């Protein structure tokens, strides 16, 4: 190996230590027996995981977040997949412009989307409600589904569908038997990113906070501003575990390269 290669690998290793260290310490701290997050860890326990289930706002907001992420992801699929199917085959300048527009929520500052939506949705009569949260979360999740489905469907040759149509299958049958199985990796990646985006979102959910509509990140932020105990660490570790399981399952089913198109 050349010297430059060695230097590159050392740099890369340092980079990943930088990336992993702040996350790893949280996982370690979540197993501490001490009442505060500090080193050295005096002993090990699961009590902070138990604490999650004793603190009612965590459980309530976890339930809100889960329902919200499912609704936003399903809505994004229903709205986004048809558009993605059309746009990935269209070649006109209009189609490019529409794709840009449909992806543009990704480029707008989340805090502005949240702040603006609060006033607009109140004016429409939604107020601070679960329905309002679902609408705003769908706005920020929709681009992920459109992006991943478009990316996957573009790489599918139209010949497969043409063959089915020529052989006499109806449009619906062709969609169900040919198109849908082919774009499934895109849908899966889109759902994964949509779900995680919604579940983690703080800047938008923050504006729609109330006892009934606080999401998990909003409750965690409020908790962190007053306390520094390791229950936040335990909760974060659980969240990470779930996300990693989802990623590994998606990777086993569809391959990790497909996942990177979403970012």
């Amino acid at each position, binding site marked *: 190996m050349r010297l430059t290669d060695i230097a*590159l690998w050392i740099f890369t290793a340092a980079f990943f230590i930088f990336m992993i260290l702040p996350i790893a310490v949280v996982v370690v701290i979540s197993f501490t027996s001490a009442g505060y997050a500090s080193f050295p860890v005096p002993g090990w326990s699961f009590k902070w995981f138990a604490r999650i289930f004793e603190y009612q706002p965590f459980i309530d907001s976890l339930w809100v977040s889960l329902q919200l992420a499912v609704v936003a992801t399903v809505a994004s699929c229903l709205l986004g997949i048809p558009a993605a199917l059309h746009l990935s085959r269209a070649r006109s300048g209009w189609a490019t412009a529409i794709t840009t527009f*449909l992806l543009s929520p990704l480029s*707008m500052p989340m*805090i502005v989307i949240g*702040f603006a939506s609060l*006033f607009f949705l109140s004016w429409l009569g939604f107020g601070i409600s679960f329905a309002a949260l679902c609408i705003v979360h769908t706005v920020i999740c929709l681009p992920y589904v459109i992006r991943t489905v478009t990316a996957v469907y573009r790489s599918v040759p139209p010949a497969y569908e043409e063959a089915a149509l020529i052989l006499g299958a109806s449009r619906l049958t062709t969609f169900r038997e040919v198109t849908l199985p082919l774009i499934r990796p895109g849908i899966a990646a889109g759902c994964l990113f949509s779900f995680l985006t919604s579940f983690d979102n703080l800047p938008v959910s923050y504006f729609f906070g109330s006892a009934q509509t606080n999401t998990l*990140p909003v409750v965690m932020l409020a908790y962190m501003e007053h306390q520094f105990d390791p229950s936040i660490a335990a909760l974060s570790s659980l969240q990470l575990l779930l996300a990693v399981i989802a990623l590994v399952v998606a990777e086993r089913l569809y391959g990790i390269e497909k996942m990177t198109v979403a970012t």
Partner: protein
Amino acid sequence: MPKTAHVSARMRQALLLAPSLIFLVVFFVMPLVDNSSRSFMTEDGSLTLARYGSFLSDRFYLGIIVETVVLSAAVTAISVLIAYPVAYVLVRKAGRLSGPIIFLLIAPLLTSIIMRTYGWQVLFARRGLVNQWLVTDLGILDAPLRLLNTPGLAIAALVHVLVPFAVLSIASVLQGVDRRLEEGALMLGASRFRTFFEVTLPLTMDGIGTGAILVFMIANGSFVTLVLLGGGFQTLPLLIYQQFNTTRDFALASTMSTILLVIALACLWLQLRLVRRQGA
């Protein structure tokens, strides 16, 4: 193609596109327009530019716009500088390790912003891991350092959030570079360094641009890191958050979010130009 078939194809296109288009026009465009329009209205509903006039002539608020842009630019520059070698290793050197490397890049994206800021607090608190090493284990220092609420830590935390996006976009462009151009330069006697700086780097400039704009856009809108880790920065998103939380001057918050929106739109426009050039 018979005319009826053509018409029904049009109908089908419209039906496929309409739901998402209508949804985003109503629930994405209209709130933003509504919000910006509020910053141009006086209390009694007539048009005014007074808010922008006073905002842009106030040294404090001008300073905040500058600070927002400078902080985002600094975070972007650091992210791109760190990301390039990592992307290079991922595409050119990793071989069978590229799978695990991509996994390590994506894994932090799956962690919540709360978890990461908590991690930085645990690492750099007075009784955190870093002070523990410096004072007790290595004995370099006598007393723990004050590391939380420093600008450096806030910047590091922002880079931590954003650098994977830069790596992924640079890597995707590096992947597309025609290796024969590099081999040609090497064969004609250029050193490896010269080949890199005169062939590889110019060819990946557009990828650096796209990645940089992406990072800049996200940095411009982020405030959770700054709320929790401090650092003394005063940025537009942070001020909007404070206006909403404590001062409750919603017209001022609308003005600031419109300015933030204009910066974001400018970035989007730049990004589209770059992408179009890559396509051409």
